[in-house]
């Protein structure tokens, strides 16, 4: 969690409709491309689309579950032990997600390895618990968790699709670019992760800047 991310929501968040609560995480406050939270899993598992999607969905599951329980117990948790309590709630859901994934998709579970339990240390989860779920009702907390999770999944899917397509010429393991494509191996290696996210951020900054210019001239 960066120091700058904390004071973004002072006190309780302003009222909003259910749709706004969900949409915010996908667009304007996207955890990856705007808030730069949860960077470690973002880079580590996005060399294959299947891994990226699995990590995104697992994180969404944990976000919704943790949001629900943090919001439920928000009046009972003492202020002094709140961070530890949130971490415990998050860790419980991560353990659940880890076991469910290992039982249903053992191959993906093996590929993700220690990065599955590492969801606990994803600053996005603790950040949203502290800044949002602990201050609002159950329905809003769940909506926000779902929106943030979906925004996270979307970013991971785009990133891993670009990396797998360029680095291996495949998508979900199916050959797309044909046998004559020479794989750009760099993209599936660690430097390619930084590079692909850098390009994605440049693209987002370009679109945002262009929109601002258009609004200024209109």
């Amino acid at each position, binding site marked *: 969690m960066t120091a700058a991310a904390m004071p973004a929501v002072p006190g309780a968040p302003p009222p909003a409709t259910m749709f706004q609560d969900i949409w915010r995480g996908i667009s304007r406050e996207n955890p990856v491309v705007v808030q730069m939270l949860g960077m470690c899993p973002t880079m580590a598992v996005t060399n294959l689309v299947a891994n990226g999607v699995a990590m995104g969905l697992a994180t969404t599951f944990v976000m919704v579950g943790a949001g629900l329980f943090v919001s439920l117990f928000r009046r009972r948790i003492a202020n002094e032990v709140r961070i530890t309590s949130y971490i415990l709630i998050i860790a419980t859901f991560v353990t659940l997600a880890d076991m469910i994934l290992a039982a249903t998709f053992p191959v993906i579970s093996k590929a993700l390895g220690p990065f599955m339990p590492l969801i606990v*240390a994803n600053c996005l989860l603790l950040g949203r618990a502290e800044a949002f779920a602990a201050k609002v009702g159950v329905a809003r907390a769940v909506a926000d968790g779902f929106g943030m999770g979906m925004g996270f999944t979307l970013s991971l899917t785009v990133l891993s699709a670009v990396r797998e397509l360029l680095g291996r010429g495949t998508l979900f393991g199916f050959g797309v670019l044909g046998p004559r494509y020479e794989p750009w191996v760099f993209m599936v290696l660690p430097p390619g992760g*930084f590079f692909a996210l850098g390009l994605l951020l440049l693209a987002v900054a370009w679109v945002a800047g262009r929109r601002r210019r258009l609004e200024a001239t209109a």
Partner: protein
Amino acid sequence: MSNLAWIFVSTLVVNNFTLVMFLGLCSFFGVTAKVETAWRLGIANTLVLLLTAVSAWVLNTYVLTRTPFLRTVAFIVVIASGVQITEMAVRKYFPVLFRQLGIYLPLITTNCAILGLALFQTSRHYTLVEGIVFALGAGFGLTLALSLMASIRERMELADVPAVARKMGLVLIVASCLSMAFMGFAGMGTSQ
């Protein structure tokens, strides 16, 4: 002995925690604007990594032998309280250092490098000594990556870059180049 040396070199450069394994990226991007803070945070992280390596070994050997599914929960609770204790000790005995580190000290809890160390140590079945060497290599590697990045970013302050790249875009491209440089060490041995 050579095994210990290999673990150290391997975690320090070949499989550098930050640049190759993608652990601890939040602090890598968040607090590398100044060399001074980056360096201090690296040292604080090394201390917590050492504490974690020892406690993870104790937990694995004596406590969690019959309940491995509680590992994630147990590790994170131990790390959170370890960071809390470190913070209190530093505040009591080194007040100057405490003021310099400020907010970064409690934030170490959500640094995935710490939990990652405990998990990798478990999955590789390291002994106590190997675990400590592993933690030292990881800590120095983290400090190295943070200081390198901070030095480059201090220079970049004065560079004339396009407006689009002024925020994080350029930082990530630079990180990519650094990571590429570290990939050069991969020839030193098998990456396990």
